């Protein structure tokens, strides 16, 4: 198990400070997954925010919300579980 962290964000642009805190807390080797309303941050308009790490996107949540042109790789529920196991800890920003 590595020393890295999985950052999970489930809030959208209504709470811009939350994304900023996440980005401030990000270390090398960490990954970000956007779930629920967090997936709106994966729209092209916000692509410039993620310079340190490209976010991963929970596919079902993106599909539910009709969001297209996503910036970032999509994962399914099993992939989400793999990510949680892969990292030493997970942090929910909610």
């Amino acid at each position: 198990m590595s020393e890295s962290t999985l950052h999970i964000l489930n809030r959208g642009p209504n709470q811009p400070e939350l994304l900023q805190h996440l980005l401030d807390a990000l270390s090398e080797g960490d990954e970000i997954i956007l779930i629920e309303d967090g997936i709106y941050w994966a729209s092209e308009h916000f692509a410039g925010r993620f310079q340190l790490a490209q976010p991963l996107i929970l596919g079902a949540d993106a599909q539910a919300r009709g969001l297209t042109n996503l910036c970032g790789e999509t994962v399914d529920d099993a992939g989400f579980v793999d990510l949680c196991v892969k990292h030493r800890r997970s942090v929910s920003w909610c």
Partner: protein
Amino acid sequence: MNSFLIISRCAPYGSAAAREALELALACALFDREVAILLLDDAVYQLLPDHNPSAIGQKNLAAMQQSLPLYDVDKIFICQSSLETRGLVTEALALPVTPVDSQGLKALMRGYEAVINV
């Protein structure tokens, strides 16, 4: 009270708030009250087309949205700056909407007897 402005501020599906705002609008219309909806902040995402929430076990909000005109709820206002902040344009949305700027917001508030934030 005879006229209601319902302000919706939340994205769909992440919470029940978007659905509750729609239900409230339809309930007002059923009682023959004048009603308008104002979409602010992340609520602008409610009108993205092609929702498909079956994979997360939720009902599609689109059917309810499309029923609004049938109940004479045809005043749907949308905050221009909320759209711009999110890189969206009204042409990309699933229902006809009227964009409002900050002056328009002030006028809207004064135009209704009750203003409800959901």
